[in-house]
């Protein structure tokens, strides 16, 4: 999220799209309600008339998987009707920047410029700006980048500072504004309605209501969830929402932003911590063979020429110093070579790919830490069969999940499966302490209340026992590249016992020379601004800098920023700056420079995040997310007058409409889902040209002729994910005892199905039996002139659990995904149904 939950109350218009936030993020409804009480308008766009939709002012149905068409039409509407926020767009975005002369998009082919058919990839050099001038970093003594020459800093050639060509009038046909305008001019109301299955009057009502937030003083927020992201073009779904928000000047303001309601309690933390193939903690990139085979190459390929990411070498060297401790020196590139390098086919190691690797016999051992992929990942039956090829599997969890017991699934024969499976019992959330990050980037501390039941242990203790044993084996026996293991710093102990608090010190960052983990005497850094690239500071994850920085009480989380519990609310915007800590730097609303105009005057005097008073940024209700002052050698600060660099995490410090960041599109473009009921009428390609894993034999594409019903999946309030946690709670089974497939009255009549009947749902990948829930909440849609039926299934069940069992709905979902995030396409696929 760019904002946070309490901030929803500041919105003038709320658009829920690809989320059922009232049911699945119930606490969000409290803050949406506050906005409604203050007069806000609430729009819900969803295939189903959800309980969220039932509370909204405007409900607009949509065919699953057509969000880019819907938002593309909105962009066209906003531009045509001149409803965009001119000053914001002209000053803070790249609308005025002029693109490479070769940049183009051709609807006749469906490709952007640079497509290489032999490589099946884009050569993206035309997705960059024309360069007006280039200059060098000032690394001389006293220069802004003098640190590059400091002793201990790894050698690298700093990037060339590029200044793009611009046209402030935005008339140049090759400027971003004109290219974007042209791109979305094809997204007419009529065409959007035909593709999305919408009604024109409702669509215009939605566009009109949401575009009203283009007025400078208005704020609109978009709440989204997996309904947006779980598509073969899911990353572009999120990008196009960003485009809309930038056009309307809604990013960086209170009550605005792009707010992902994430689905797991600490998925934000897991993403921060880079439990992902390509990432390094703190949104850096894990070393890979192509661009960063050594530390010099990492620094040269990753460091931006401008903006805050000019500091990346400081974050990386500090992280390596944390990883390898005294073994990390400038002479050995701070241990960089010991880390694994992601090979060229890195995407094959994301979740769906790992099951292909098991199927092929390449992957032999697997850990599942509180995750249940044989129920939660697509094409689950294939995944179960693939897992039978594993030599060993380790599951750490609270209950015997379906993943732990895949070998005795109803469709498996245990005697034939040679996998050795270990189950490690894990502690509950209140049986251990530690940090958790919510979707609004708030880092909060959980306090251990009781000892775990039986022999269960916290995951940190399990990890420590295992690591200790592995190190012992390598010390005794040696092994290939044993130094990669033996040089790792692993000293997170208090009184000889593994403890999360020393890990928190490592997150926050500390001065190496004046800290001693062993005696808990720590010189914790006030903030990440103090990190150095010379090996004198250690920090596991730079974005957490300042969250645990009280060196006087390193063992007391309640005395740290993460443990704060005060209710101060400057500006009465629900910022709560003294409650816990929000990364980065306790900023509650990121990009908050954009909450004020080019002169630093807030767009809305009632929603002041920061304000320039003519001599300084005197009002700072939120921590400024921009360079608002510079430090002088004598300890004083010089205020920095307002400038246009509102997005300083980008090298050009301006938000991007056209971007080279994604693999598959420079501007989001509509493609159809892998399994679609219709033809793409926006361009000549049916699917995204880079859709992942569609060619794997297990994907078994279904044809509309054979499977004429569009299916999607969703959750209910009372159960969660694979149900492993919630089906163990009798109260929840009592409220929601079994799974169902929801369908329209029209489809039910056509198929001779009555409410409550058992039905069979099937496609090429599998078959499940569920009870029918026949409602008016799903309606057939008219798509490109044809009537399309839709069904929805909840996915919280499997064969395990003493209280409640059911079928694995994800046996039906396709294991294909997005080429950027590798997220699977759970939310739009094809099935058929019949009465059992």
């Amino acid at each position, binding site marked *: 999220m760019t904002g946070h939950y309490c901030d929803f109350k500041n919105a003038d218009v709320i658009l829920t799209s690809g989320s059922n936030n009232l049911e699945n993020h119930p606490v969000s409804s409290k803050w949406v309600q506050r906005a409604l009480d203050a007069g806000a308008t609430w729009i819900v766009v969803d295939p189903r008339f959800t309980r969220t939709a039932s509370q909204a002012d405007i409900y607009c149905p949509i065919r699953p998987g057509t969000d880019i068409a819907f938002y593309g039409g909105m962009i066209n509407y906003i531009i045509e009707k001149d409803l965009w926020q001119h000053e914001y767009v002209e000053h803070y975005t790249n609308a005025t920047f002029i693109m490479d002369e070769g940049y183009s998009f051709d609807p006749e082919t469906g490709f952007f410029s640079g497509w290489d058919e032999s490589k099946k990839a884009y050569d993206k050099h035309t997705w960059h700006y024309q360069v007006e001038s280039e200059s060098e970093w000032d690394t001389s003594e006293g220069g802004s980048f003098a640190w590059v020459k400091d002793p201990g800093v790894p050698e690298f050639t700093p990037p060339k500072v590029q200044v793009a060509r611009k046209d402030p009038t935005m008339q140049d046909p090759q400027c971003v504004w004109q290219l974007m305008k042209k791109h979305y001019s094809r997204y007419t109301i009529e065409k959007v309605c035909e593709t999305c299955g919408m009604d024109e009057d409702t669509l215009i009502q939605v566009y009109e209501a949401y575009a009203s937030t283009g007025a400078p003083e208005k704020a609109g927020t978009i709440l989204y969830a997996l309904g947006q992201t779980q598509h073969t073009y899911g990353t572009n779904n999120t990008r196009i929402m960003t485009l809309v928000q930038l056009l309307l000047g809604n990013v960086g303001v209170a009550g605005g932003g792009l707010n992902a309601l994430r689905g797991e309690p600490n998925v934000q933390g897991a993403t921060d911590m880079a439990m992902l193939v390509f990432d390094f903690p703190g949104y850096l990139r894990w070393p890979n063979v192509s661009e960063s085979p050594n530390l010099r190459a990492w620094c040269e390929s990753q460091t931006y020429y401008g903006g805050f990411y000019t500091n990346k070498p400081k974050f990386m060297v500090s992280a390596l110093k944390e990883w390898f401790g005294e073994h990390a020196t400038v002479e050995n590139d701070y241990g960089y070579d010991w880390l694994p390098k992601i090979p060229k086919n890195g995407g094959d190691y994301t979740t769906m790919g790992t099951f292909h690797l098991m199927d092929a016999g390449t992957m032999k051992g697997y850990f599942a830490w509180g995750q249940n992929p044989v129920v939660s990942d697509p094409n689950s039956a294939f995944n179960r069969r693939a897992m039978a090829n594993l030599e060993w599997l380790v599951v750490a969890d609270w209950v015997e999940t379906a993943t732990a017991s895949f070998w005795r699934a109803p469709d498996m024969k245990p005697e034939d499966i040679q996998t050795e499976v270990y189950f490690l019992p894990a502690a509950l959330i209140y049986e251990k302490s530690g940090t958790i990050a919510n979707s609004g980037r708030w880092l909060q501390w959980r306090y251990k209340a009781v000892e775990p*039941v039986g022999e269960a242990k916290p995951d940190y203790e399990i990890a420590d026992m295992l690591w200790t044993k592995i190190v012992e084996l390598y010390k005794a026996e040696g092994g290939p590249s044993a130094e990669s293991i033996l040089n790792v710093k692993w000293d997170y102990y208090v009184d000889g016992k593994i403890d999360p608090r020393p890990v928190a010190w490592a997150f926050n960052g500390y001065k190496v020379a004046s800290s001693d983990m062993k005696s808990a005497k720590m010189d914790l850094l006030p903030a990440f601004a103090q990190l150095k690239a010379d090996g004198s500071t250690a920090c596991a994850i730079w974005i957490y800098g300042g969250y645990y920085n009280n060196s006087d009480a390193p063992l007391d989380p309640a005395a740290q920023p993460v443990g704060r519990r005060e209710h101060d609310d400057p500006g009465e915007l629900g910022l709560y700056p003294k409650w816990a800590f929000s990364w980065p730097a306790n900023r509650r609303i990121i990009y908050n420079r954009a909450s004020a105009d080019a002169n630093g005057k807030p767009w809305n005097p009632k929603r002041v995040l920061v304000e320039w008073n003519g001599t300084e940024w005197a009002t700072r209700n939120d921590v400024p997310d921009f360079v608002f002052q510079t430090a002088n050698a004598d300890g004083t600060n010089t205020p920095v007058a307002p400038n246009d660099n509102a997005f300083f995490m980008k090298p050009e410090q301006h938000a991007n409409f056209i971007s080279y960041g994604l693999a598959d599109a420079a501007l989001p473009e509509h493609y159809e889902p892998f399994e679609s009921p219709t033809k793409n009428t926006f361009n000549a390609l049916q699917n995204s040209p880079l859709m992942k894993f569609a060619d794997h034999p297990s994907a078994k594409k279904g044809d509309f002729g054979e499977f004429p019903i569009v299916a999607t999946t969703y959750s209910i309030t009372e159960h969660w994910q694979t149900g492993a946690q919630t089906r163990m709670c009798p109260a929840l089974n009592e*409220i929601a005892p079994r799974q169902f497939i929801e369908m329209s009255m029209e489809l039910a009549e056509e198929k001779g199905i009555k409410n409550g009947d058992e039905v069979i749902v099937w496609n090429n990948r599998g078959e499940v039996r569920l009870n029918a829930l026949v409602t008016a909440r799903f309606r057939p849609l008219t798509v490109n002139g044809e009537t399309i039926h839709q069904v929805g299934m909840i996915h919280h069940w499997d064969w395990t659990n003493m209280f409640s069992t059911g079928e694995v709905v994800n046996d039906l979902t396709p294991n294909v995904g997005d080429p950027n995030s590798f*997220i699977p396409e759970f939310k739009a696929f094809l099935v058929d149904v019949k009465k059992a």
Partner: protein
Amino acid sequence: MNLTRRGFFKATALAFAGSMAYELSAQSQAFAVDLHNGEWKLVNTEEYTNICCYCSGGCGSIVSVRDGEVINVEGDPDHPINEGCLCPKGAAMFQLRNIVDPATNEVVHNPERRTTPMVRRPGATEWEEISWEEAIEGVARRVKDTRDATLIEKENGITVNYTPAIGSLGGSQQNSEEEYLILKMMRSLGLVAIDNQARV
């Protein structure tokens, strides 16, 4: 430091005073206030704040403990996001640990939970319970053998140090410190295949 009521309770770790007899059976149904023998059910408990384990709202909860056992879990009224509220799932967090046995009406540890390390041997039809030592030794041996047999140290002249043969999935349920320790262990072993619930 301006301590809130909850902060004060936590900071002083309100001492447990007494061994009052009480019945847990009523506790799983009534979460906020309950009368037992005329006493407030949360009398003489220690309170610990926690954060919910379901969606990413980050709602605060209070776990009340007496005699080393959880008595109650409820929303934290001082928490600015949820202001004391919890959804049905959050409100049932007590049952992750303890439930009422319908046969005896006694509060018991949730029988669905597994609290002993187990192994299922190749071809076996059942689990066998084992000690932590056996579990950790068994897993560590498997990890080392697989890593040593599959580690690629150099590829096209580049030091790569990775194994394609081991994967690690999950993390969104753990605390951040645990995520980091798991990550650090797995990457140090040479894993490329690291992923979590971010996509499901």
